[in-house]
C-alpha cells in the first residue's frame, strides 16, 4: 500500500479531472449545435498542433515587456514542461501503480522529472522576478511552485524504486508533509486542468479538433470571411452565451490568458475600453451559472474596473450592468490582430460580430453615429448618404466608360466609398491614370455600384449587408463575361467582394490595386523612374489587405519598383497595427485615452520616416487626420504615378 500511494494520488486526480471535464462539456453543450466533422478533426489535431499552434507560439509576442519573453522561450518552456509532464504521468502510473519496469523505468521517470525541471527554470524566468503585463497572475503565479512540488515529491517517491535509497514509510511527520505537498501538486496540475490555468491543455486539444473554422489550418491565405447568420437560430446573433455554437464556447475555454492578443490590440493600446483577452475570459466566465470577473487576474479593459461584471449562460452578455459593457464591444476595429496572435487559435472577431449582430438586428442598439450610417445605407446605398450617381463626380473629366457602354473590359474599377472623399479621389485619379498608362481602359458601374456592405456587416447589420450584396451580385452577374476582373483600391472591397460574396453566389476575380500595379511594373507595362529623393519611407499594411487577405508582398514590390527601400515598422506585414478605421469604429466612436491612428503614427515616427505609404482609402484618411508634425501620407498609386511621370 505504501508504495502505491503516489500512483493512487495521480489516478485519483485524473478521475477527478474526468468528472470535471464532463461537467465542463455540459457547459459547452448548452451552446447551439454546430456541424463538426469530429473524426477528421481529431485526426487533423496533431498536425494542427505541430504546425499552426507551434508557429503562433514561436512568434515573439508584440511589445514584450520583459527580456527573454520570446516566442522561442515560450515554446521551449512548453516542450520541456508539458512534454516532461505527460511522459512523467505515464511513467508514474507504470512505476508506482503497476510496479512495472523495475529500476530502468524508475530512472527514466527521474530523467523526465529532470527534463521538467529544465522547463521549470524557464517558467520561473517567465514569472520571476516580474511578469510581462499581458500575462495573468492568480493561479498562473502558483504554477511554478506546483511544478516544483510535483517534481520534488515524485523524485523522492521514486528514489527507492530507482534503488537509490531504501523504501520508506509515508507515516512519519516528514512523510506526511511530503505527501501533502504531492497531493497539492496533483490537485493543481491534474485537477486544475479542469478549471485552472492548465485547462488550456485539455481544452486546447479539443478546440483544435473541433475548431469552428477548420479551413484556417494550413491555409495559404487567411480564412477571414465572416460567416453568414445561421438560418434557423432562435435569435439573430448572440445575446446569451448559449447562443454561441458549442464549439465556440469550447474555443473560449481554451484561452490560456497569454495576453498576446492584448499586446497586439490597437484599441487596448489606445486606451479604449477593450482587451481581447478579458473579452474572451468574460465570455468564459459568463458561460457558467453564476459568472463574474472577480477571479480575473489580468489587465482590465482600459478605463474600467475589474470585479463588477456578472453574467450567466442564459443571461444577456452585453449591457452596462452585464458581463461586457457595450463600449467594449463597439471599440473593436475587427483588425484581426488578436486572431493572428492567438496561440490557441481563438476567433475573437467572429465573437465580436456575433454579439454585434444581436445588438444591431434585435435591439437596434448600435451606438453613436452608426445607426445614422446604417440608415443612410438603407436609404441611399452609400455610407455617406449621397446618391450613388455622385460617386463619380470627381471623374467627370476622366470620362470613364460605364460597363454598360462597353463590350468588355480588362478591369472593372470598383470605386468604393473613396469616390466620395476628396482625399481618396486623388488616389483614384492616380490609379485611373496608371491603368491607362499601362494600356488598360477601365470601366465603371457608375450609379449601379452600391456600397459593398463592409461597414454594415462589421456593425452587425447582416440584413443590410445581404441586401446590398445581393443587389451588387445581381448587377455584376448581369455583366457576366464583360469584365475580366474587378480592381479596387479599397481592401475592404477586396475582402467583401472577393471573399464574402461567394457565400451569396457572387464569384469574381477581385484584385487589389497594389497587386495589379506590382504585376504591371513587373511586366514592364509601367515604367517608373527610381525615386532618388533619399527620403525615408515606411509602409503601413492595411489589416484588410494583410491579415484578411494575406497580401503583404505586392505593396512592397510596388515600392521597390519605384526604387524605395521600405524602412519597416516594428509592426508590419501580417503583424501590422490597425489605423483605427475598421469595423465601423469611426462611426461607433468609442472614446479612448488616445486615438488609434495617433498610436499608429507613433510607430511611423519610430522609423524616422518622412512619408508613410498606404494602400487603403481609410488608412489614408485616418493617418492624415493625425495632427502635425507627422509623416506625409500617400497612397501607392499616387507615389507610383509620380514616379511613372518622372520616368517619361
Amino acid at each position, binding site marked *: 500500500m505504501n508504495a502505491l500511494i503516489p500512483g493512487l494520488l495521480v489516478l485519483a486526480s485524473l478521475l477527478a479531472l474526468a468528472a470535471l471535464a464532463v461537467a465542463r462539456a455540459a457547459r459547452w453543450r448548452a451552446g447551439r449545435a454546430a456541424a463538426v466533422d469530429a473524426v477528421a478533426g481529431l485526426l487533423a489535431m496533431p498536425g494542427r498542433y505541430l504546425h499552426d499552434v507551434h508557429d503562433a507560439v514561436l512568434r515573439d509576442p508584440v511589445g514584450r515587456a520583459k527580456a527573454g519573453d520570446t516566442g522561442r522561450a515560450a515554446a521551449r518552456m512548453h516542450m520541456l514542461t508539458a512534454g516532461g509532464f505527460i511522459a512523467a504521468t505515464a511513467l508514474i502510473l507504470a512505476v508506482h501503480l503497476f510496479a512495472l519496469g523495475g529500476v530502468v523505468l524508475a530512472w527514466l521517470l527521474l530523467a523526465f522529472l529532470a527534463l521538467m525541471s529544465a522547463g521549470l527554470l524557464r517558467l520561473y524566468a517567465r514569472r520571476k522576478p516580474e511578469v510581462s503585463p499581458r500575462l495573468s497572475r492568480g493561479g498562473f503565479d502558483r504554477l511554478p511552485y506546483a511544478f516544483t512540488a510535483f517534481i520534488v515529491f515524485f523524485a523522492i517517491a521514486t528514489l527507492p524504486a530507482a534503488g537509490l535509497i531504501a523504501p520508506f514509510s509515508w507515516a512519519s511527520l516528514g512523510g506526511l508533509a511530503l505527501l501533502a505537498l504531492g497531493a497539492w501538486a496533483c490537485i493543481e496540475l491534474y485537477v486544475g486542468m479542469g478549471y485552472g490555468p492548465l485547462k488550456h491543455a485539455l481544452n486546447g486539444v479539443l478546440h483544435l479538433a473541433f475548431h469552428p473554422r477548420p479551413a484556417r489550418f494550413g491555409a495559404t491565405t487567411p480564412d477571414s470571411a465572416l460567416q453568414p447568420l445561421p438560418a434557423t437560430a432562435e435569435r439573430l446573433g448572440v445575446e446569451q452565451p448559449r447562443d454561441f455554437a458549442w464549439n465556440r464556447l469550447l474555443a473560449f475555454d481554451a484561452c490560456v490568458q497569454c495576453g498576446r492578443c492584448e499586446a497586439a490590440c490597437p484599441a487596448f493600446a489606445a486606451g479604449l475600453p477593450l482587451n481581447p483577452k478579458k473579452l474572451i475570459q468574460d465570455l468564459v466566465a459568463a458561460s457558467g451559472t453564476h459568472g463574474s470577473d472577480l477571479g480575473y487576474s489580468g489587465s482590465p479593459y482600459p478605463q474600467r474596473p475589474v470585479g463588477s461584471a456578472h453574467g450567466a449562460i442564459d443571461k444577456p452578455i452585453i449591457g452596462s450592468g452585464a458581463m461586457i459593457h457595450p463600449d467594449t464591444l463597439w471599440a473593436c476595429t475587427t483588425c484581426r490582430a488578436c486572431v493572428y496572435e492567438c496561440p490557441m487559435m481563438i476567433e475573437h472577431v467572429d465573437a465580436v460580430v456575433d454579439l454585434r449582430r444581436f445588438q444591431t438586428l434585435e435591439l437596434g442598439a448600435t451606438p453613436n453615429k452608426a445607426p445614422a450610417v446604417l440608415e443612410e445605407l438603407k436609404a441611399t446605398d452609400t455610407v455617406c448618404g*449621397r446618391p450613388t450617381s*455622385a460617386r463619380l*463626380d470627381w471623374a*467627370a*473629366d476622366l470620362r470613364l466608360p460605364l460597363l454598360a457602354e462597353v463590350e468588355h473590359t480588362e478591369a472593372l474599377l470598383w470605386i468604393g466609398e473613396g469616390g466620395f472623399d476628396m482625399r481618396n479621389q486623388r488616389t483614384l485619379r492616380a490609379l485611373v491614370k496608371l491603368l491607362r498608362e499601362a494600356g488598360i481602359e477601365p470601366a465603371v458601374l457608375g450609379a449601379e455600384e452600391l456600397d459593398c456592405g463592409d461597414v454594415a456587416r462589421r456593425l452587425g447589420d447582416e440584413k443590410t449587408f445581404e441586401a446590398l450584396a445581393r443587389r451588387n451580385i445581381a448587377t455584376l452577374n448581369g455583366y457576366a463575361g464583360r469584365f475580366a476582373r474587378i480592381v479596387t483600391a479599397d481592401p475592404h472591397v477586396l475582402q467583401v467582394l472577393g471573399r464574402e460574396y461567394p457565400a451569396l453566389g457572387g464569384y469574381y476575380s477581385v484584385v487589389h490595386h497594389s497587386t495589379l500595379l506590382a504585376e504591371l511594373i513587373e511586366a514592364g507595362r509601367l515604367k517608373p523612374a527610381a525615386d532618388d529623393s533619399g527620403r525615408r519611407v515606411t509602409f503601413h499594411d492595411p489589416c484588410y489587405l494583410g491579415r484578411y487577405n494575406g497580401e503583404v508582398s505586392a505593396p512592397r514590390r510596388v515600392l521597390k519598383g519605384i526604387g524605395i527601400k521600405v524602412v519597416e515598422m516594428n509592426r508590419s506585414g501580417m503583424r501590422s497595427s490597425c489605423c483605427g478605421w475598421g469595423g465601423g469604429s469611426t462611426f461607433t466612436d468609442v472614446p479612448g485615452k488616445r486615438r488609434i491612428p495617433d498610436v499608429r503614427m507613433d510607430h511611423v515616427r519610430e522609423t524616422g520616416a518622412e512619408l508613410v505609404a498606404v494602400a487603403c482609402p481609410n488608412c489614408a484618411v485616418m493617418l492624415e487626420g493625425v495632427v502635425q508634425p507627422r509623416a506625409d501620407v500617400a497612397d501607392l498609386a499616387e507615389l507610383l504615378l509620380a514616379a511613372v511621370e518622372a520616368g517619361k
Partner: protein
Amino acid sequence: MGQFDKLLEPLRIKHVTIRNRIISTPHAEVYAEDGVPGDRYIRYHAEKARGGIGMTMFGGSSSVATDSPAQWWKSLDFSNDKIIVPLQKLSDAVHGHGAALMAQITHMGRRNRWDGGNWPHLVSPSGLREPVHHATAKTIELEDIQRIIKAFGQAARRAKEGGLDGIELSADHQQLIDQFWSPRTNKRTDGYGGSFDNRMRFGLEVIEEVRRCAGDDFLLCLRMCADEFHPDGIDHEEAIRIARFYTETGLIDLLSVTGSGADTHATLANCMPNMAYPPEPFLHLASGIKAEVKIPLIHAQGIRDPLQAARILDEGHVDLVGITRGHIADPHFVNKMREGRLDEIKQCVGANYCIDRQYQGLDVLCAQNAATSREAVMPHQFSKAEVKKRIVVVGGGPAGLEAARVCAERGHTVTLFEKEPEIGGQVRWAAKAPARDQIGGIVRWFGLELKRLKVDLRLNTAADAAMIRAEQPDIVIMATGGVPFIDQFPGWGAAEGLCVSTHDILSGRVEPKANVLVFDVTSLFAGATTADFIANRGALVEIVTPDLHVAEGMGGTTVPVYNKRLAEKDVICTPNTFLHEVYREGDKLIAVLENEYTGRQEERVVDQVVVENGIRPAEALYFELKAESRNHGQTDLDTLFAYQPQPEISGEGFLMYRVGDCISPRDIHGAIYDSLRLCKDF
C-alpha cells in the same frame, strides 16, 4: 458629407459636362495677337484647366463686328474666319486638361473708343454720350442692326467651328444689347424702343440668329446685370422680367448675372469689387434672379475663398460659381481645394492690379502672382534643383518673401532675415489704411507658405555683413526695400522734423493731428489712403498734389472707391500744387503751397504735414558686401530678361543679387517678378 461635395459635383448641360462648379467668367485678357489667341493666351487658359477649373470663359468683350473695335484691350476678333484655327488650338489645350470653354462675344456699341483701328463711328440706340469712355455714338440705323445681328451669328459659327463648348453673349456692363434694354440709353420710338418688348427685340433677334447659325448642340449663355443702380436704368424688378423673357424662349442654356451698371466711374468700380467691398456684395441680386429662372445660373463678383464658394452653392444661390480674379491669382485654385491644400491657395485680395492694367490697355497681370500669363517662361509649380544651395535672403517684404519662397520650393536651404517683428515690409503699413486691410492677405499667404516650406525665418534680426558671412551662403539675395524719401526737398522740413511720412502715420509711430496737410508726390495708394486714415479719425485733411488730380496713379476701378471715401469725409483735394515750404509758427505749422502753373503761392495753417514721396532704396548693406561677392552684386540683365539662368561665375565666396525696391522703388508685382524670374533657376 464633404464640405466641397457640391462644388465638385459635375453639371451637365446638353452634351457638355462641366466637371465641377467653379469657373472663370470672361475677362479681357489683353493677350490676343492680331485678334486671335496665340501661345501666351492659350497657355494662360490651359493652366487653369490644368489646375482643375470646371470651365474657363475667355475672350472678354470679344468683338463680333468691325465697328466694335477691340484692339484697345487686345481682345479676340470674331468678325473674321481667321480666328477659327487658333481657337481650335485653344480648345484642344483646354479640353485636353478636362475643362470646358466658352468665349464671350459682344458688340460694345457706345462703350468704346473711336480713335483707333478703323476709326469707326460707334453706334448706340439713341446716340447718347458714354461717361466712362467719353464716346458719343451715332444713332444706330436699321441697316446697322441687321448687319450686327448677322455678325453675331457668324461669330457664333466661328466659335463652334473653333471647337468651343459655347459662347456667352454679353448684355452686361452696358454693351449694345443692354444699351437697347435700358431706358437710360434707349430713347427710340421705333420697334426697338419704348415698350419692354421693343427694347428686348434686338437681343432676341441676336439670340435667334446665333441659335440658327450655331445649332442646338452649342451652349449659349447670356450675361446680364441684375440692377444698373441708376434711377433711369434697369432696376431689379425689370432685370427679373428680362431674365424671364429670354430664358422662357428656351433658346439659352445659361444665365450669368452680375450686379451694377458700368457706364459711370462709380458703378464701374462695382463690377470688379476691390478690397474695399464686403465679400460677394451683389450675390443677393443674382440670387433674386436665380429664384425666377429655370436654367443654370452663374455669378462672379467678389468670391475668393473655397469655403465661401461652397456656402454660396450649398445655399442654392447659384449653379456655377465664378472665381475670376481668384484664378488670375491662382490658376490651381481647384486642385489645391480638392487636395485639401486650402492654405496654399493664393487668394485674390482685390488689389485690382489686373483690371486696372486692362483699363489702360496693358496686359492683365496679377499683383501677387508673377507667373500668371507668363506660363511659357515662368513656373506656377516648381521642380527641385539638382544642387541644393544655402541661400540667405535679407528683407521680408514682397521681394524677399517671394525670393525665399521660390528658393525653398526649389529645394534650397533658405534663411530669411527680417529686422522687424513681422514680415511684410511696406505692405504691413499699406494694410493699416481703412478698407485696405485685405492687401495684408498677400503677406499672410507668404507667411503660410514659408512655414510649409520650412524657411528659417529670423524675425527681429537686422542682418549685418558678419551675420550673412556666418551663414556661409552660396547666394545672398538683397531685398532690403527702402525708407520714406521725405528729405528729397529741403523745404519740406524733414530735417527739422516739420513733416512726417505716410509710413509714420500708418504704422502708428506718429499720431495724426487735428488739421493735417498731406502732400502726395507719388499719387498712388499711399497718399490718398493715408489721407483717408487721418480723416477717418475725424481730422480735417487737405491732400495736395502736383499731379493733374489726386491719386492719379491709382487705377480706373479703384480710384472711384477712394474718391468716394475722401469726399464723404470732406477731404479737400488740391491738385496741380507743390509744397514749397514748411515752417513753424507757435504751435502751428505753416505750409506754403505753390501752383504748378501760375507760380502763385498760398499758405495753410495746419497741425501736421505728411509727405508722401515714395521711398529711397536701403543700399548700405549691399554696398558693404558688393566687393566680396563673386558677381559684384550684378544681375546679368540679358539672361534675366530672357528668363535664362544667371551666368556661371567661378571663384570663391557667394553670389549676390538685389531684388525689389532696394534697387529702385516699384510696386508689389515688380518686386515679386524680380524675385521669381531670378530665383526660379537657382
